[in-house]
């Protein structure tokens, strides 16, 4: 009932404090130095401490892909990694991909192909989609790559396989495939 008035007061009164660390992250080109509870995931750091809520929390266990962001150019599930493990890392979230006024080509293609419904998995799908095209361009093989020595083609099967860590319960998969294929063709 008589709750202390501020977070600081409560922290002061607590019998033991929680271990904290200071970490510097470069998020969408902006440097942020934060002192965080060591248990804070990268996802919660983005959403709760930087108010970058475009990255979504669907499961918090690396099972749905809604939190996909780019760290130093590679996509990861932001819920599966702690912020303190990313000192100096460059992170790109959906907010760094494009804005309402200036959509990135992948974002435009998602709108044009109705590649989403409820929109909750969408930022993760888009971050993954951009990464998938980079991974294929870098000739990184997937489970469905038949010939590991050949140049990997952008096929429906390659895209579907590489996007399969991003769940979409509304079932927009067929439209997401169209959106990614459209962007791949535009780039080719």
């Amino acid at each position, binding site marked *: *009932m008589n*709750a*202390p008035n501020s*977070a600081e007061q*409560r*922290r002061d009164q*607590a*019998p033991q404090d*929680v271990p904290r660390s200071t970490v510097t992250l470069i998020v969408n080109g902006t440097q942020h130095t934060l002192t965080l*509870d060591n*248990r804070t995931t990268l996802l*919660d750091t983005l959403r*709760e401490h930087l108010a*970058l*809520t*475009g*990255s*979504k*929390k*669907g*499961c*918090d*266990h690396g*099972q*749905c892909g*809604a939190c996909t962001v780019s760290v130093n150019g590679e996509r990861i599930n932001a819920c599966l990694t702690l912020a303190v493990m990313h000192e100096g890392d460059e992170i790109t979230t*959906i*907010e760094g*991909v494009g*804005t*309402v006024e200036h959509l990135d080509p992948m*974002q435009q293609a*998602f*709108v*044009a192909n*109705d590649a*989403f*419904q*409820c*929109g*909750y*998995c*969408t*930022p993760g799908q*888009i971050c993954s989609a951009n990464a998938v095209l980079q991974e294929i361009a870098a000739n990184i093989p997937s489970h469905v790559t038949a010939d590991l020595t050949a140049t990997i083609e952008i096929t429906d099967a390659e895209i*579907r396989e590489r*996007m*399969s*860590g*991003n*769940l*979409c*319960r*509304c*079932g*927009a*998969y*067929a*439209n*997401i495939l169209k959106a990614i294929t459209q962007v791949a063709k535009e780039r080719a």
Partner: protein
Amino acid sequence: MDFNQSTDDNLFDHARIVGKPHARIDGALKVTGQAPYAYERHDVAAHQLVGYPLCATIAKGRITHMDATAARAAPGVAAVVTTLDIEPLAQAKSNVARLFGGDTVAHYHQAIAVVVADTLEQARSAAALIEVRYQEEQGVFDLDAAWEQQTPDEPLSDVGDVDAAFKNAAVTLDEVYRTASQSHAMMEPHASIVDWSDGGQMTVWTSNQMIAWTRKALAKTFAIDLETIRLESPYVGGGFGGKLWLRADTVLAALGSRAAGRPVKLALPRPLVFNNATHRSGTVQRLRIAADAEGRITAFDHSAFSHTLPGGSGENPVNQTRAFYAGASRRVAHTAIEMDLPESADMRAPGEASGLAALEIAMDEMAEKLGMDPVEFRILNDTQVDPEDPNKPFSDRHYVECLQKGAADFGWEARNRTPGGQREGQWLIGQGMAGAYRGAPTMDSGARVRLQAGRLVVETDMTDIGTGSYTIIAQTAAEAMGLALEDVEVRLGNSDYPVSSGSGGQFGAASATAGVYAACLKLQEEIAQRLGMNSPRFEQGMVIAGTTEVALAEVADGEELVAEDTIHFGDFKDTLQIGTFAAHFVEVAVHAHTGETRVRRMLAVCDAGRILNPVTARSQVIGGMTMGVGAALMEGLIPDVERGFFVNHDLASYEVAVHADIPEQEVIFLDTTDAASTPLKAKGVGELGICGVAAAVANAIYNATGIRVRDYPITLDRLIDQLPKVS
């Protein structure tokens, strides 16, 4: 506006915007991550704290002891409320188990405490410090063991002479089918921010399909005045029926807020969603069909069982059997067996999806027994009247056209006709089809429109759960007022706005657009009166009567004009069967050695009245087809029948279809309108899309392998011992 008879020719029959493809008007917000979902609204209330739930780890019994001393003393903790701290909360009708309060545990993962702290990390850590002791009671958890012992409920319907029909039939079928319990598994877990800091005014930012219902449920649950509650849910990260009701996230956030004197936000951690929240009950269905030698169905006998907590209604899968096909005699019964598994409730096409999963395999089996093509068998048994009441016609039914068009476009003629007879390397190839029938209910729905300097703002408590409500409502208002789509702003999901149908039961799109149309007609009257015009036309931003033209931007002299109305649907609809229909065609490949099933292509042909926006409607249908593939091949909550909970309670072990599972999907909408449905002659498609899909996949697997599986999901273990011997 009263809708008391079928509508005549109207402006929607000559539409500029309604019925045309338009990208979602909320699209840019969603693809940039700027659409605000419930848990992430930092801006709406200052000094938000974080709540974390503790849930019961027994399925049935009572709590004998809880000690939250350590949790209360943990760093950052502002408040702890345990279920023993308060009296049992009242239960809204929509909740079968109480949501919180008291010492009784009615199901596994029922909420028993909420911890409120500065951060998620602190709240989660402190919740783990609460000690709980239980007195466990024996529960009943095994539907498969229970149904044969159960005395069935009285039939819901018993017409003609079923027993005589079976006695005299040339061909009969009698089989048992099983559907698995399923989770909505929407991507956004249940989440709310609640500000009830002073225990007076309660403001709720949540993720919910039904604003007015949930507001009422909150008033009932907390025994507070409805007027003190305000609720917002502008964006919903998927619902599928799982967010129709008030659930524990909102209740715990409210209790936490009152205790801490701060706004509290709380999301159900994903592993708690499956057993704490609701699911679709599994079913066991015995289905008998009788037919004469020509293939005319003479009787159906469909008896089904599902599970529910005491007082609930389970999953009734027999209603489609009552009206889908012709046949003079039929008896259907559903028995909801009271069991102690978590709460079963509505999920996308509740009843229909489960019932058609069984019925449409049975139809395939009957066709085979009769030596008939499954498409022809269905066409022969089409009906244009309610077979239980031949005086009640279908208002607009084009199921036969769905079947014919689908067969032609899919290349049904060229299909494999010998089960197990088509092979490509290690893959057995098969084609299957199924029919779909889902009712098209409508609900009274209100809206308010504001004309502001030639722009229109629409306000209604309707929700957009991915269904496209924002866009089709803007299209409707733009059409009615003679505006461009860009001149309409749509505001949804707020209890300050007029009460709408909400999103559920496939009634949302048809009802809410009709309500918006009603409000626009009210505004038109007001404008006409103001301008002294008689029945003016509204075109291209102008109000036109005879030779007089006034720009909409100038009718109010800089003031705002506001109009509000609700569409009321009359009981003339009770004299009709109003439904939606589809035919699904599927091709699968089943690996001859492993039994792995891959869906290779899918086609749906739908008859659902006027399609308001073919872009968003198509997405609804492919979404249903995708969920139907999940139901057919992988989705199933597995009960621990000793301890009474669903074991696979996360997104890694409850498998839904992923990108790699879904092939090319084609959707064709027949160009139909249903004048008895709404002024827009529209019906829903969101639930039609899932109906029948699972059976089409099952029938294709049979065609590929010759193995008839009647238990969903059709995982490879159900096939592997019957596959061809590996040489």
